[in-house]
């Protein structure tokens, strides 16, 4: 788990880089190890997806980057680098405070509860612009209406005066996105931005993110458990399991050529329109508790191809002769390869 894994060319300085990041939660039951050494790098203008099931540490990773880990949680090891400079420690925290909400911003999972119910949409937009851009109230309000227009909200002047409860979930998520891009950030972290939305609205919101990325040159860290979303929006994928990254690679490659048995299981568990078999394949068992994580491979108890080597923790190693990396002693192509892609790219365009 030594050096970070650069996922494509290591040439441009990554906008965001995590090095062996560890996060612990000191709970009554004991110390829960939420992140157990997470490393990845995100290059400017790219989209990286963090995928994995609930509790795998995706959201904790996002919270750590945004500086939102609160007691009883704490970052206990590793580093977070913004354009090569650490965001941890005393000086790093000051740097992070200047970036937060301005150069890096975040869209959350649940738009229903993410806005202050007592404040109008306009007041939210004015507040963040006054804070970070030093605009006057009037200028911030005018620009706020433009932002609402840019995220596809009709009749923005009227919406500015409305309160969150007067808007639908999809509209609120658009407002959250408008707030996130209000100060023209370089990095947008989207934590399951479509999970709480209707399927048709999901596609619209993802299209919006893709458009914004193209127009603003955003780098996006997308957290999701939906592989369809990944295929449509992302270039790079990192698969998380039990607080660590088990496989990384280009989105185009990963689904067809997954090497880690967990990724293979995830791909197989994704419903496909092209597949006529009646049963969905699932991965037996449950992820290990992170209160006392296994010393060896965390996936071994559920893995169909364990060997004696799995008693030791496998490092994330570059795959021989190819793209990406995986943390498995026995990595091999999936038995069912080559399969059709799980979801066709741009299926929601």
């Amino acid at each position: 788990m030594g050096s970070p894994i650069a996922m494509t060319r290591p040439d441009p300085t990554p906008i965001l880089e995590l090095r062996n990041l560890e996060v612990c939660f000191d709970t009554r039951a004991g110390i829960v190890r939420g992140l157990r050494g997470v490393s990845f790098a995100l290059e400017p203008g790219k989209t990286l997806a963090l995928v994995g099931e609930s509790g795998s540490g995706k959201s904790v990773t996002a919270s750590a980057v945004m500086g939102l880990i609160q007691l009883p949680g704490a970052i206990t090891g590793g580093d977070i680098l913004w354009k090569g400079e650490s965001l941890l420690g005393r000086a790093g925290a000051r740097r992070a405070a200047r970036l937060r909400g301005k150069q890096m911003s975040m869209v959350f999972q649940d738009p229903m509860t993410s806005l202050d119910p007592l404040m109008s949409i306009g007041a939210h937009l004015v507040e963040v612009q006054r804070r970070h851009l030093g605009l006057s109230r009037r200028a911030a309000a005018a620009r706020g209406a433009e932002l609402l227009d840019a995220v596809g909200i009709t009749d923005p002047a009227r919406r500015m005066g409305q309160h969150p409860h007067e808007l639908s979930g999809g509209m609120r998520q658009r407002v959250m996105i408008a707030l996130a891009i209000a100060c023209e950030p370089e990095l947008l972290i989207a934590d399951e931005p479509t999970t709480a939305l209707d399927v048709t609205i999901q596609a619209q919101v993802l299209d919006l993110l893709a458009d914004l990325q193209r127009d603003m040159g955003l780098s996006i860290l997308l957290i999701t458990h939906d592989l369809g979303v990944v295929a449509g929006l992302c270039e790079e994928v990192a698969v998380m399991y039990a607080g660590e990254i088990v496989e990384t690679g280009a989105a185009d490659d990963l689904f067809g050529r997954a090497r880690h048995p967990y990724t293979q299981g995830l791909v197989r568990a994704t419903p496909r329109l092209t597949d006529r078999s009646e049963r969905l394949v699932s991965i037996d068992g449950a992820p290990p508790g992170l209160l006392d994580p296994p010393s060896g491979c965390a996936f071994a108890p559920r893995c169909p191809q364990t060997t004696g080597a799995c008693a030791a923790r496998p490092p994330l190693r570059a795959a021989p002769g190819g793209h990406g990396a995986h943390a498995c002693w026995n990595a091999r192509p999936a038995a069912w390869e080559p399969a059709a892609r799980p979801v066709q790219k741009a299926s929601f365009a």
Partner: protein
Amino acid sequence: MAQFLIRRALQGMLVILGVTLVVFVATRMVGDPVQMMLPLSASAEQRAAFSQQLGLDQPLGTQFLAFVGDLLRFDFGDSLWQRRPAIEIVLTKLPRTLELIAAGFGFAVILGVPLGALAAMRPDGLWDRIIVSLSLIGLSVPQFWLGLILVMVFAVGLGLFPTSGSGSLSHLVLPALTLGIPSMARIMMLTRSSVIAELNQQYVRTARARGLPFAHILFGHAMRNALVPVLTLAGWEVISAWAGYTVVVETVFAWPGLGMTAMGAINHSDMFLLQAIVFVVALGIVLVSLLLDLLYKLIDPRIDLA
């Protein structure tokens, strides 16, 4: 809005009518003013004449209709005890009680809300422990006992304030504290738990992710949301002081307000004065709860008054 106000006005009138009916019946069942007012040696004819003069010889229904008729003209009859119009007595005592409630309640809110918020900023921290312990004491102390202890310490012992009576600001301090301390403790505890709950809300997390400073999030977002339940409690505090606690406090401190007058009216079987007092108190409660509803609407746009 207009519809809401009209409906509330009609409801309020019903409430006041109901309360006056209860008091009307109760005062006539509990004591006989004729027995109280006339000397033991009075003859049966004198008693009958006095009873007739007050209208007490009429059937209860007739009496009540006459009472309601007078009430519409704001005429509550003459006090039996003080021999002047009952409403006049009430109006001279009313400002003293309002003064006491304003001082006690003001103290409770001005200290209770900020201290509750301070405790909430770091649950289980030093300030939180101190504040919670103090409010537990404030919550458990009976009001009459608190009043007596305050008198013993600050008036008798230290001589800082007068023991009782009214007339100056220093007279107001101890009764206002007696009225306000338990109230403050309750407001403090509720503000604390309410602010803690709000600080754990998702919108606080998103506000932090937007890079807003903690003080801004606390005062600009969390406090305002936290105040909705606190407002409910504050309204209850005012109403219960107005309709009850002032009786205790005014009696302990000989504060010449409505509460003490009500005690006197009961002791003298002065049904007319008591009816006037209860009417004014009921009117006050109706007005305070109307004001509360309007304040809710002001704070929370989701509340629909219609």
